[in-house]
């Protein structure tokens, strides 16, 4: 044996820190249209390279190109733009409402709107999402009531969740949106179980799981891959890689693997990376993965490559851990602008229509907000009752909780 030098702990560091100049030179961005579109029943082994590339449809000139293009009509695309604009405006208003003390907390989607908005359009009634706190686009694209969402955020008397949950942890069985947990990743394995249940019953519904880049380190992620792989569950496993997990850059969770999608390879699960800021690409990949699930071909892992433009939540300021201008340097651009450019290029959109739509959306949201606020905000007006606090722990209230409710005098 030879002599060995002292070992050294390797701790990954982001390319730049506050004060530095943002630099995404190391992020390899393939040309739009350059990635092949395999048949949905392709053997996972033959398409491993999809885990290391990025499927993109919209090119720099706003054209839709390549084998993943051509799936959406003008109308569908216009609706998509409206969804993303609505989500962005909703975020802006709610962020302000939080600053005004109308609620305790808020989380926005800035820069990631395409991911959930586009994905939703690949789903059928009965399908179920198991989302994180950053997929409100699934609700908006489903036409869910903005007032209900706001009432949840305000924890007011009309809050569908009776004030029990933190803002933005929505739940809507009707719109295929599973109750969001405050605990990261837990819903990933539940999605697999839900999908297995559908298969056990011989139904046709599929499940869609959502997780952040940082949260892939959690145990539930592994369990989900193991069970999905073993039982070929009809589920789409989404990873939203927005480059950050609060203050922690994605290199800490990703480690030495090239990509998060690569995690699927060890399970024989087809794994794709998609340009998460490209509405058309997300939609196309979502359809492909959903189709696999519906045809009983099993799970698909999808890494959405995007960027969290805003703060993690209203509780942090990203200037403390990354350069202020980092989001400007993000090479995949802004999803709203990119779709808008594409629609303009298609000849169905204009500066004017855009401004007009923006104004319409703002009107709708302001009206919703007025209505929601008429039912109260966190610290003022109507609120859920103390009785609501004791209800629903069990289907039927057990004696000890009845005693406690009596003690509380309600």
């Amino acid at each position: 044996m030879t002599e060995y030098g002292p070992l050294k702990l390797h701790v990954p560091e982001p390319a730049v820190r506050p004060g530095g100049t943002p630099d995404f030179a190391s992020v390899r961005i393939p040309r739009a249209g350059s990635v092949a579109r395999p048949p949905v029943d392709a053997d996972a082994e033959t398409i491993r390279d999809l885990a290391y590339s990025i499927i993109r449809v919209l090119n720099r000139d706003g054209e839709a190109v390549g084998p993943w293009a051509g799936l959406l009509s003008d109308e569908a695309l216009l609706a998509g733009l409206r969804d993303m604009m609505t989500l962005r405006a909703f975020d802006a208003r709610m962020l302000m409402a939080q600053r005004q003390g109308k609620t305790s907390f808020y989380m926005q989607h800035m820069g990631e709107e395409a991911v959930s908005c586009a994905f939703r359009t690949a789903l059928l009634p009965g399908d179920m999402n198991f989302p994180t706190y950053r997929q409100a686009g699934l609700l908006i694209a489903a036409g869910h009531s903005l007032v209900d969402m706001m009432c949840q955020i305000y924890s007011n008397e009309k809050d569908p969740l009776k004030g029990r949950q933190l803002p933005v942890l929505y739940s809507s069985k009707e719109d295929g949106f599973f109750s969001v947990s405050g605990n990261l990743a837990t819903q990933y394995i539940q999605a697999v179980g839900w999908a297995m249940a559908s298969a056990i019953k011989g139904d046709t519904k599929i499940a869609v799981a959502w997780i952040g880049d940082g949260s892939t380190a959690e145990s539930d992620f592994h369990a989900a891959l193991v069970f999905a792989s073993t039982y070929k569950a009809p589920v789409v496993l989404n990873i939203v890689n927005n480059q950050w997990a609060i203050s922690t850059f994605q290199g800490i969770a990703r480690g030495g693997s090239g990509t998060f999608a690569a995690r699927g390879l060890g399970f024989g699960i087809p794994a794709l990376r998609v340009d998460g800021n490209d509405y058309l690409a997300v939609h196309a990949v979502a359809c492909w993965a959903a189709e696999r699930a519906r045809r009983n071909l099993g799970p698909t892992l999808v890494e959405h490559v995007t960027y969290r433009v805003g703060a993690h939540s209203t509780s942090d300021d990203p200037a403390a851990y990354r350069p202020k201008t980092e989001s400007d340097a993000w090479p995949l651009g802004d999803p709203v602008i990119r779709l808008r450019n594409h629609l303009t290029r298609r000849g169905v959109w204009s500066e004017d229509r855009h401004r007009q739509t923006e104004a319409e959306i703002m009107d709708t949201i302001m009206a919703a907000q007025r209505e929601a606020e008429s039912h109260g905000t966190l610290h003022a007006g109507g609120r859920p009752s103390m009785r609501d606090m004791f209800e629903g722990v069990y289907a039927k209230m057990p004696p000890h909780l009845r005693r406690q409710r009596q003690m509380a005098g309600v």
Partner: protein
Amino acid sequence: MARKTMIEAIRDAMDVMMGRDDDVVVFGEDVGFFGGVFRATQGLQAKYGTRRCFDTPISELGIVGVAVGMAAYGLRPCVEIQFADYMYPAYDQIVSEAARLRYRSNGQFTCPLVVRMPTGGGIFGGQTHSQSPEALFTHVCGLKTVVPSNPADAKGLLIAAIEDPDPVIFLEPKRLYNGPFDGHHDRPVTPWSNHELGEVPEGHYVVPLGTSAIRREGSALTILAYGSMVHVAMTAAAETGVDAEIIDLRTLLPLDLHAIQASVRKTGRCVIVHEATLTSGFGAELSALVQETCFYHLEAPVVRVAGWDTPYPHAQEWDYFPGPGRVGRALLETMAA
């Protein structure tokens, strides 16, 4: 009616429910083809197919996690954790998810799920095949916790658990699988076929969750026990001659506080027995409740007899197990107090 072991009674409950309700599914490690390491699920895969009863990867998190998803879908999973000692990887899914899903979604999603697990010592299983973690469940609102002490109850309680709309933790004292073991490890155990509670009704019946049973009427002192400790208590009472009233709690949460209160107000004395480690065990809650609700009737301190605050040792198993000797001493001391 037929005499059955506790394992047979438990299997029978699952069989009855799988037969009645296509939404009942059963899975866990070695649960499918093999029928479980304690054989609780033997024959179920052959009878109901791999779709209803199957083997899982060794991931307790995964087992409970997929079960939560299935329950939210509308199924009624009844899953097995091979030993209670191995439930910790699933604890997050149980506590943060199963227990809170109804509440946090305001009833949009619910979790009718049963998690079965063998508990307790007495089989020389050492520290990782002997634990009794009931207190880790009773502290968690949203869960129900059940511990049967005999075949007849085990079947009725498990059926009630499977039919319950909320998550139920079903703890099976493994030392009782084959007979009413009373802690006298040096004597042969009566098989359930010689015990009246080995008489297990056919078909569907329910022992409602939240109801206790008086195993022995008495006037001198109340013993609160569950699982194997019920039999230890019976023996201790017989051996000491203390006229104890023995309440088999059966369900720890919801708890049959009325029955406890009625008995302790009558006897004025109370001894609580469990196998789990003493500190912060479920006995602490029982002691607090008895004291809170029967204070003016108490003639002696409420006493707890429990496992010591050490891991369950292998060689010193019978020094650890709170057998009839230790329980008997507590009875006599409480009578003398």
